[in-house]
């Protein structure tokens, strides 16, 4: 990493040029536009230009009832759609004061964690692809397909789930799902060894990721970074532990952290979190309580006047649904706190001084979903 100050001289104006990475670019996930100012190969300034995927979710929420908005959260962050879906349900339940049966909470945890693994597969393997290794990407996506099969069995959807309902979930889990999840856990535990060999012990991978894009704790605090990106910087902040929601306090799991704060640390945190998610799923399957999967909730919920903020942990960081209700069936205002939005902005702070190739690496290691930023 070069210090941008050392290359500062009077002729800089003639030497710098801007490069438009995107909106169509192979390694900007989705339609992201990075305006990079370069001096040769050295990055002087990065300015993300967002909004190419803005679909007006928040305005849409003000035009339909709480139930009608149910499919939307999964389409904001389509990679962890299940988590968003459950999060939105939790926010409305908090607003209305609905108690969720324990079995439903457990099913929510199982499906959310499966979704988290699927999302981390994409996050970690897209990062490897940004470095130019294409094979890990295909391996990871292949393993992810097994998760999609399981979730499809109970939800009927591969990607954009609307499985959660206010007060529970739509379907009970089946015997096939139960057995399949057990088999999947065993399979994935065996596969980690392959990833370790292919990626983590690859000397070029280490050389490319180590000490690249270091996010210090102060920078993280300044920019409101959350999720695996933050835990790679040595802060063990995870909403699942800090503000326990759903059935998470009943499970025993760790929050993996790394002190370095570089791209490698973020990658390792993601891989370690996948193992922790497997642990959670295993415990939840072991102690799955009997009972109903859905509380008695009216067909159309009518929350009282007031507002609430419901935080939960998606695969990318702390998400929050802020809902203001005017006492009618239509939300007065729904605001989504998108973790990618804050995480992406850190790029402007940490990229200068790195090389062009590192921008792609850092961008991949932060793992953003564009429609979640733009909403």
């Amino acid at each position, binding site marked *: 990493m070069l210090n941008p100050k050392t290359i500062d001289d009077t002729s800089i104006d003639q030497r710098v*040029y801007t*490069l438009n990475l995107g909106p169509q*670019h*192979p*390694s900007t996930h989705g339609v992201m536009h990075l305006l990079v100012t370069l001096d040769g*190969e050295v990055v002087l300034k990065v300015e993300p230009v967002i909004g190419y995927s803005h679909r007006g979710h928040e305005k849409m929420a003000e035009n339909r009832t709480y139930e009608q908005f149910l499919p939307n959260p999964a389409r904001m962050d389509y990679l962890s759609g299940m988590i968003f879906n459950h999060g939105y349900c939790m926010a409305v339940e908090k607003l209305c004061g609905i108690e969720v049966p324990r079995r439903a909470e457990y099913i929510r945890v199982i499906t959310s964690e499966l979704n988290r693994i699927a999302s981390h597969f994409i996050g970690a393997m897209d990062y*490897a*692809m*940004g*470095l*130019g*290794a*294409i*094979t890990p990407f*295909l*391996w990871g996506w*292949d393993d992810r397909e097994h998760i999609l099969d399981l979730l499809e069995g109970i939800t009927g959807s591969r990607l954009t789930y609307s499985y959660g309902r206010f007060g529970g979930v739509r379907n009970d889990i089946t015997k096939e799902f139960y057995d399949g999840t057990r088999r999947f856990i065993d399979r994935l535990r065996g596969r980690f060894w392959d990833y370790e060999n*292919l990626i983590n012990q*690859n000397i*070029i*991978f280490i*050389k*490319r990721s180590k000490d690249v894009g270091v996010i210090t704790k102060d920078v993280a605090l300044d920019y409101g970074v959350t999720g695996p990106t933050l835990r790679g910087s040595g802060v063990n902040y995870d909403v699942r532990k800090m503000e326990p929601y759903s059935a998470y306090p009943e499970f025993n799991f760790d929050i993996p952290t790394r002190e370095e704060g570089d791209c490698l640390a973020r990658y390792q945190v993601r891989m370690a979190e996948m193992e922790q998610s497997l642990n959670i799923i295993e415990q939840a399957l072991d102690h799955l309580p009997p009972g109903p999967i859905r509380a008695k909730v009216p067909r159309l919920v009518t929350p009282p006047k007031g507002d609430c903020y419901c935080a939960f942990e998606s695969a990318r960081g702390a998400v929050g649904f802020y809902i203001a209700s005017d006492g009618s069936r239509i939300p007065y205002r729904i605001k989504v706190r998108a973790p990618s939005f804050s995480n992406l902005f850190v790029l402007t702070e940490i990229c200068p001084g790195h*090389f*062009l*190739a*590192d921008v*792609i690496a850092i961008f991949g290691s932060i793992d953003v979903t564009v429609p979640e930023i733009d909403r």
Partner: protein
Amino acid sequence: MNITQLPYLKDIYAFLGSDVTAGIVGLLIIAAIVPLNVAFLVLVERKVAGHIQLRPGPMEVGPHGILQTLIDAVKLLGKEMVTPQSTDKLIFFLAPIIVVAPAFVGFVPIPFSPMMQIKDVNVGILLIFAFSSISVISILMAGWSSNNKYSLIGAVRSVAQNVAYEIPLLLATMSILIMTNTFKMGEIVQAQSSVWFIFYQPIAAIIFFIATTAETNRAPFDLVEAESELVSGFHTEYTGMRFSLFFLAEYTNMVIAAAMFTVLFLGGWHGPLFPGMIWFLIKTYFLIFVVMWARWTYPRIRFDQLMNFAWKVLIPFSLVNLLITAIVLKVL
């Protein structure tokens, strides 16, 4: 009357037996074989990639997709050839032509077997090196004339990379040449009839392999067309057949590089049981397979690392290796 006694037929026979005829016929064979070979290699690449990535690769066009790349070539022939408005039109037009020509010339001195050699040029190795440097110029031409920043970055990277890696490449070759005292590729192969040079010169072999991988812009040194950073690098603006000429050159250069490694280190056509041609091809294609294997396993290295690796690791090592070889052979 005996036909051979006719005077003009004698001249024809003399002409047919001459070097010029051999050269023309050889070049025609090259012109026919090289594109087919490239089509085959692209297919092999896609199959290798597929099987490494747990999928079958091309399957539908012909049995196991063997006609896939031919079909691709026909399609590229039928595409519109776009010359963007802001390009430098002449250079843009010339670049893909210039990139292919030296790739064809590179085949001339390569001895596929004792008999199969177009011409055992007395500066064979130098000829290949000299012509392979031309491809850098054409890449620079393509990158410059495209008037696209991605292309330009790719082209500039390519020049720096080729300058850096040509030095260890030549130094590694020098240590072989000191042992054989000849530039003729046929004689270099004959010198290895008992022991292959890879056993005498393992360090030079490794350096040569790495440097040729970098020279031919293959992963993990494919910074010139680094897909995840530069979209397609120097050929971002090229369409249709022009783009496929770059592809042709890339794979042909890969074959030449593998063939040179076979000649210099793996004993060329020497081997038991099979005829020399078969052995030569087996060795060459195995090396190509290794290059593909590396491509689908390793990430790409960064530009500064690439430069550091050439100047701080490869060049010192190859210099020391050359020095030791020279001392052992000439002084002791």
